[in-house]
């Protein structure tokens, strides 16, 4: 029996859409306090609910790589943010076993004014890796990232490709048990992508698990062992890479494109 590293149970995330453009002000907060109104009563006042995620249940086992596929706005990034603990769910829960290292969007917590070197340590600390360990692995991180020349340059002067190289290099060296990667690698050039995919494959072989978001079917096919198809905040289908979901997804895609 394999170890479950991540168990997502009935996970939901609700947002309130404010149709009137009204900033969240101290005044409205105070009047809410004064009249005993709660945030739910505001929904009644004409603000619309939006469920970015609705009752999503998934499991991830050790050594697996789950690819989330789906259109923009289907809830993939919301799911990744919740399991990276950046935002809380509205309902449901996740049980996580192991350290999660996330690469969400570009930047992944880099501080623009700090140099590459300083950011390696800061980012490492944010990913729960002590600076002692980072110091030992600094050469390896720098080597992987290929930004040696710019190590003492503030990262705000980095190109987006350099940014993501460094971010990936740090995340690859913090002994994470679960790697969460949101499409960011697409920014890197072909060589770097190849390097990352090779690295990821070796990690999955060693018992590291992964959750990736990718719009590239080729990348999914190469890396993923499992697929979860998200649609409108719900899990439309999920299963192994061989279960035909990916093909179905591709077909639905091209079908849409063909229709006028």
């Amino acid at each position, binding site marked *: 029996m394999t170890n479950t590293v991540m168990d997502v149970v009935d996970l939901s995330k609700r947002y309130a859409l404010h149709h009137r453009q009204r900033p969240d002000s101290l005044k409205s907060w105070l009047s809410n306090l004064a009249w005993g109104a709660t945030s739910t009563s505001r929904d009644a006042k004409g603000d619309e609910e939006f469920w970015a995620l609705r009752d999503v249940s998934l499991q991830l086992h050790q050594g697996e790589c789950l690819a989330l596929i789906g259109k923009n706005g289907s809830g993939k990034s919301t799911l990744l943010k919740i399991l990276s603990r950046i935002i809380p769910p509205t309902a449901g829960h996740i049980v*996580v076993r192991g350290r999660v290292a996330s690469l969400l969007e570009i930047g992944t917590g880099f501080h623009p004014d700090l140099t590459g070197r300083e950011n390696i340590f800061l980012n490492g600390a944010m990913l729960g890796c002590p600076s002692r360990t980072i110091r030992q692995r600094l050469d390896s991180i720098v080597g992987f990232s290929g930004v040696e020349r710019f190590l003492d340059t503030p990262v705000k002067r980095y190109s987006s490709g350099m940014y993501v190289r460094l971010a990936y290099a740090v995340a690859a060296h913090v002994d994470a048990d679960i790697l969460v990667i949101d499409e960011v690698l697409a920014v890197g050039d072909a060589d770097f992508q190849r390097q990352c995919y090779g690295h990821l494959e070796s990690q999955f072989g060693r018992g590291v698990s992964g959750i990736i978001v990718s719009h590239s079917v080729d990348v999914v096919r190469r890396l993923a062992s499992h697929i979860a198809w998200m649609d409108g905040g719900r899990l439309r289908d999920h299963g192994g890479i061989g279960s035909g979901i990916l093909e179905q997804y591709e077909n639905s895609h091209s079908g849409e494109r063909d229709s006028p």
Partner: protein
Amino acid sequence: MNPGDKHLDPRRQDVPGDEHGGFPGRPSPASELPALPPSRLIDASAPSLRGYWHELFAFREVAYMLIRRDLIVRFRQTYFGLAWLLFKPLMLMAVMSFAFGYLAGFQERQSAPYPLMIFCGVIPWYFVSNAVPDGMVSLRVHIFVIQQTYFPRALIPIAAVFVDAIEFVVAWLLFVMGCIWFAYLPGWQVLAFPLFGLQLLVLCTALGLWLAVLNVRFRDIGNLIPFLITVGFFLTPVGYPYAAVPEQWQPLYALNPLVGVIEGFRWSLLRGLNGFPLGAVASSVAITIAVTLLAVRHLLATDRHLVDLA
């Protein structure tokens, strides 16, 4: 399942399409897989104080690095470097000695050298007037970091206030130099000095933390606080002694928690000047505790929602 339900039932064996073991090309997970740490629950509930404290400790290196960076940025490319730390409070003292001691004539009534009395007000005031706004803006300034990684959000305002606290501690060198200049030696009361210092640190950290969290959501705070600090200067005994306040106004005046701290510094460093300000110290300690409790409560309730609120 309820949002706050911590109960972990053995669940969901019935998820479709989740059968395992048969994917060709995948190394089948074997017993030599790395051992996993104990599980963590992510749900809608707010963290407990104890859990949050553990996380603060676990991620303390993030705070070290933010502090280090702030110190470097503050003094990098400055010609006078660390001298700025002492120069600003020194100038404030000189101006206030002139305005309050000489022009307003408070000087004659004091048993201790007037500049030393002013230092006891200027040094803490300078700290508060920097630390509170620095703490307040810190989360908003770092929002892009918060949006991309998790660590206890409180580390950011704590680090911001801590940098000012380092300046605060160093600034007391001015008082020491003043003592040498005036050949003045404090009495036994100096033993209480660290306690008042600690209280001020707690107060500023709590205020910075609370305002930082509020400022993410309510931009009004960013307008209010600088104004309050400008007004507060005149309602704090920085340049004049507490005793100058008419007696019937003193209880109201002492609701400003800085009154008790500053008078406490004067009592402890200036040989019990004006007697122990019991009323002001009691009110100040009570307000410090209340602010700290409220700040922690609000932080625990809001920490995880900050990104959604921003």
